[in-house]
């Protein structure tokens, strides 16, 4: 313990003064008694006569000395931990993501982080020009307090911070913090987080001077990490709901999953969640109208935010597919097998008045390119690719991206291609299948048009003979179906904006959040899109746009947030690392505690006095 104002210790000279007052004769009432013998006996039996021992038995004096010494100590402004005031500028970054709601710290990780940050404020040496910035990394990085040395403002900023349901978005906050400390050799970033941070490789070479204050103790958590709704392939009348439930604890959990549709309980399943495992679960539910399925995981764990997820499920609509082909039985069969709702029309040339949901171009370059989503084999308009389109002979398939939804359950293990087009990967697209020279399948979005382009004619390859071909076509129909794209847009991450294209101009919108509060928003009548950004809380938001009612769900569904195991270090890319600090580098002023103690002693003395005189 050290003192910021050691000069105040001179006040301790008052301590002997108190003793002297006690040694001085007190004003006493003189009284003549028959004999003082009995009194002498009494005093001899109850107390020793030496003055020091007499003082020791005088509780009032002890209390007063205690009171005075506590006050003197408080005046001397003691603080703990001996490092010099670190950094002229401290950038405090508080993680406000969903995992910070975990209650393994009391009352929660976020409160603990807030308390630690307030301790850092106490230690701020504002007298020597120390300054602090408070950033809160919730759904988005928020500068709660710009650089100041005023502790009250800093405390207010920290106390006003709120935890959100969003995944960790530390990158933005650290980016801001990095610019603040750049070129300031004494500046430092203080990150208060549990370390559930996805990717910080951006800062690998930045030499971030960061102190990682880790919060969190345990990993007692299970949560929903994936939730999806699909038409049931076996029974078109029903919907299949796929859930993944992760248990990051090293003990198994017994849990129950409750599925409800529009608030009505539909199904419930008891589950055994193995330790550190992800368990899939499928519900089958019939659905009569568009609505919201909500899955609730009933389990006793430390983080409640990830125990619930909702998904907006729209009734399946028939998909109108226009196949423009000179004749391709493989493709026709594959499209027919793509799904019960797929209605395929085979034409030689796309009709301009027909408005299919998607167009499949089988090596035909139409006179007018369709406006909707396109699955194109070999055919490509000139504006898709930059540079010349070449040809490569028998390109080997070296890599494919099987994590993409288009390639789900699709493998290219024994596919040979006679000839393919060679293009440069366009900026709008993502290469799903690669040959060494050129991408072979490109998926992406041009404007509002989704495109899947295959660089070769399947008939010039062995692909149609493989089981992967019809699966790919089915995946492509699903991915290109505007309705599925639509249902995806009703799912957002907490903190992400919800966007909805407006067909007609709407003046006002009413949004009812998960907390039940309705907010009326005025819209620009010229806007073609409704954007709602205040989605920090997870749950179901219901929007009324004019006469149009719709709902969207903000879901955490984030395996990284669900894994609340506190990390000992933060990896900045592959080579840099920030270790968690446990020792506090701040000077924690503790005079408040001494002053509080002094107050307690004073109250105790008051009580003692009243007991004496009662």
């Amino acid at each position, binding site marked *: 313990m050290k003192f910021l104002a050691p000069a105040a210790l001179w006040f301790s000279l008052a301590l002997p003064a108190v003793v002297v007052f006690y040694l001085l004769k007190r*004003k006493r*009432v003189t009284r003549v008694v*028959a004999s003082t013998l009995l009194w002498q006996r*009494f005093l001899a*039996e109850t107390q020793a006569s030496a003055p020091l021992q007499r003082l020791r038995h005088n509780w009032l004096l002890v209390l007063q000395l205690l009171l005075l010494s506590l006050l003197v100590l408080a005046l001397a402004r003691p603080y703990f931990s001996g490092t010099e005031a670190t950094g002229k500028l401290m950038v405090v970054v508080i993680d406000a993501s969903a995992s910070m709601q975990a209650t393994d710290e009391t009352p929660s990780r976020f409160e603990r982080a807030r308390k630690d940050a307030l301790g850092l404020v106490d230690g701020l040496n504002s007298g020597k020009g120390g300054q602090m910035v408070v950033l809160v990394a919730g759904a988005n990085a928020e500068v709660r307090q710009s650089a100041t040395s005023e502790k009250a403002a800093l405390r207010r900023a920290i106390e006003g911070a709120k935890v959100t349901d969003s995944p960790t978005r530390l990158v933005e906050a650290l980016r801001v913090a990095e610019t603040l400390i750049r070129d300031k050799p004494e500046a430092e970033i203080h990150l208060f987080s549990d370390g559930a941070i996805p990717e910080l490789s951006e800062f690998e070479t930045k030499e971030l001077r960061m102190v990682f204050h880790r919060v969190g103790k345990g990993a007692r958590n299970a949560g929903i990490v994936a939730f999806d709704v699909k038409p049931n392939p076996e029974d078109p009348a029903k919907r299949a709901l796929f859930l993944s439930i992760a248990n990051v604890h090293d003990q198994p959990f017994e849990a129950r999953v409750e599925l409800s549709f529009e608030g009505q309980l539909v199904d419930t399943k008891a589950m055994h969640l193995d330790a550190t495992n992800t368990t899939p679960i499928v519900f089958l539910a019939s659905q009569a109208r568009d609505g919201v399925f909500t899955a609730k995981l009933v389990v006793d764990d430390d983080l409640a935010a990830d125990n619930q997820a909702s998904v907006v499920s729209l009734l399946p609509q028939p998909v109108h597919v226009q196949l423009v082909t000179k004749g391709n039985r493989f493709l026709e069969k594959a499209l027919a097998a793509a799904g019960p709702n797929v209605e395929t029309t085979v034409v030689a040339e796309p009709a301009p008045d027909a408005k299919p949901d998607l167009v499949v171009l089988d090596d035909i370059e139409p006179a007018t390119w369709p406006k909707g989503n396109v699955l194109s084999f070999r055919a490509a308009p000139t504006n898709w690719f930059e540079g010349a389109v070449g040809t490569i002979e028998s390109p080997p398939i070296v890599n494919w991206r099987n994590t993409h939804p288009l390639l789900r359950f699709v493998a290219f293990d024994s596919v040979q291609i006679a000839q393919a087009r060679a293009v440069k990967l366009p900026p709008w697209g993502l290469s799903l299948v690669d040959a060494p020279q050129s991408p072979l399948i490109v998926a992406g979005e041009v404007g509002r048009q989704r495109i899947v382009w295959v660089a070769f004619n399947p008939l010039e390859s062995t692909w149609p003979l493989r089981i992967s071909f019809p699966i790919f076509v089915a995946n492509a129909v699903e991915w290109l179906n505007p309705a599925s794209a639509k249902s995806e847009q009703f799912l957002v991450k907490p903190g992400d904006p919800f966007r909805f294209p407006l067909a007609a101009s709407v003046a006002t919108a009413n949004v009812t959040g998960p907390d039940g509060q309705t907010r009326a928003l005025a819209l620009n009548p010229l806007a073609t899109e409704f954007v709602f950004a205040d989605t920090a809380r997870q749950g179901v938001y219901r929007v009324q746009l004019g006469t149009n009612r719709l709902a969207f769900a903000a879901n955490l569904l984030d395996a990284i947030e669900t894994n609340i195991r506190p990390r000992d270090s933060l990896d900045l890319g592959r080579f840099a690392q920030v270790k968690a600090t446990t020792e506090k580098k701040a000077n924690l002023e503790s005079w408040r505690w001494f002053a509080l103690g002094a107050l307690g002693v004073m109250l105790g003395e008051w009580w003692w006095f009243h007991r004496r005189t*009662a």
Partner: protein
Amino acid sequence: MAGILTPQLLRRLEQFQLLAARRAKSSSKGERRSRARGQSVEFADHRNYVVGDDLRYLDWNLFGRLDRLFLKLYEEERELPVRIFIDCSESMMFGTPPKFDFARQVAAAVGYVALCGFDRVAVCPFPEARPVDFDDPARFNLQTAVRGALRSVRGRKSAMQYFQNLTALRGGGPADFNASLKRGAMEARQTGLAIVLGDFLDPGGYEPGLNALIGRGFEVNVVQILAPEELNPTAFGDLRLVDSETGALQEVTFGKFRLAAYRQSVANYVQRLREFCQSRGMGFFSVGSDTPLEDLLLKQLRASEIWA
């Protein structure tokens, strides 16, 4: 003598007789059995006739049978000297009622019982009367006279005078308890019953004085009289206490929360005195000056067989 003892109490006391465990050693005639041989109706022994013996006491029956001259001896009945030590120091003047008043009442009662039994009563007030303790020389002279008269009282007819003298007795000044008792023991020509009335709050202790009485052969009974204020103090706060006899100062901070501790230490003091007395065969009584007199005289003293 208006009411040092009530007439009802006096009548009760007339029926009592002081009990002495030992035979009287007095030289004066009385009504108690003694080791001395003399004239009475109680036969004691025979002895050989020597020339000059009174022929009236010859046992003629024995002379007829044995043809030898024997003299019949009878037990002489003697008086029991009762010595009453009264502490008249300044400290006895305290208390409501004053401890000294209570002591005088006890002395009157004991003396009356003794006088009714044809025993000699000697009252020894201590300390000695000093001129400085009395503002008026006439009153000092009166005290000297009173004390002289109390030195030896005998006979029931002297009871009224005895009571008057006791009533006139005044005290004051510091007392040396031990020295007074020692001198009283030495002065006594015959030993007998000794009653010590006082508060036993002498800074010099009480052991040597009581030991002197025992050593002289007295049968000692101790009556400790404490004032109610001493048993349950009523003064609280920061006090400077002045000793009435020695003038010694004692500072004390006292509150109700220490009352129990004070009572305990008083009880300890009394207990120590009691144990001292009992270990030496003395009778011990500790009373407050507000104790009903009958309670002490008719119950406690009787129960411990001082009189019956």
